[in-house]
């Protein structure tokens, strides 16, 4: 029978936890705060099943546009056909890391002040 194109299809390795890092997630993930306008990387944590983004967004970086109780709204660029759409997704905090893409600019601002 054919392969199927479900939501998590072809994610066997993508969503797998790294070697010897399975099991409970470190607590610092839950203690980080995110403000609107921060840049974040989306990286799926396969052991947390709620609030997972679609596999397309794994590895994308976007800006925070919304903060809710347990999740963050991230605005990510996606190319659809001949244009790029700014897509707004909601992702739980376990699947999000603060991005260092903006870090150098922020440090320069601090130095110049």
């Amino acid at each position, binding site marked *: 029978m054919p392969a199927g194109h479900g939501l998590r299809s072809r994610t066997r390795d993508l969503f797998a936890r790294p070697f010897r890092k399975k099991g409970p997630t470190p607590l610092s993930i*839950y203690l980080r705060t995110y*403000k609107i306008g921060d840049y974040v990387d989306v990286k799926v944590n396969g052991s947390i099943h709620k609030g997972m983004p679609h596999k397309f967004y794994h590895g994308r970086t976007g800006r925070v546009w919304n*903060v809710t109780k*347990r999740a963050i709204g991230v605005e990510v660029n996606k190319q659809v056909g001949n244009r790029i759409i700014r897509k707004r997704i909601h992702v739980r905090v376990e699947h999000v890391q603060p991005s260092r893409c903006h870090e150098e600019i922020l440090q320069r601002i601090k130095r110049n002040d």
Partner: protein
Amino acid sequence: MVFVKAQKSKAYFKRFQVKYKRRREGKTDYRARIRLINQDKNKYNTPKYRFVVRFTNKDIIAQIVSASIAGDMVLGAAYAHELPHYGLEVGLTNYAAAYCTGLLLARRVLKKLEMDDEYEGNVEATGEDYSVEPAESRRPFRTLLDVGLVRTTTGNRVFGALKGALDGGLDIPHSDKRFAGFSKDSKQLDTEVHRKYIYGGHIAAYMTTLMEDEPEKYQSHFSEYIKKGLEADGLEEMYKKVHSVIRADPTPKKSEKQPPKEHKRYNLKKLTYEERKAKLIERLNALNAAAGADDDEDDD
């Protein structure tokens, strides 16, 4: 058979994933900890306080803690070994002492935050369920109970400490299901029984039964009580006094500690980098000098 093939190969160890350190020590329940620490993201940096109660064999530790990435920050702490300052000498790990410790911590923290006048809490400890009402200016101090790895049965001492903190004026979400004196059949808290436990009534009852039935066991079991001259009837009075002394002045007493005395060193002290280099130069000089002397001898 005596020799068995080695069970754990090198490959086993290479693939072995250790649990978190505190899980290996059996001290932290991470599943519970995640749920206690997790703060709503739309509350940003607002701290979420846990009312941590832990029992050792001879002590009770009660702390108000908030979590941060650098480590947990303790806002205030109270120990059962401080209770002698407030007049409680013996029975430092029973239900009544847990109540006193919870009460002490609550009053201490409220005094630190300057909320102790607004939130008196329940001054006269009856056993009934008491929750803090919000006062005019500030909302009550909210914290969540963290029992740790204790099995939460009805009448457990952690709930004694919880009751102490509640009567002290903290806002802790709870139900009366696990207080001592809750009966499963009637699904109600018997406040008389709970009050008995808060004032050590269960200990007083045991003391009287032992005195009548087995005097020798009474002498051995309650020897400290006898030494301090505590009778079964006087326990309630004593606890009432302790509660009032705690409410009068909950600030911690600083004890005078001498600096620790120097111990004899049993192993060599590690040398610094400069000391090791200096030693090497000395050794080389000595070697060269000796070699020079040998050469002179050989020449001669």
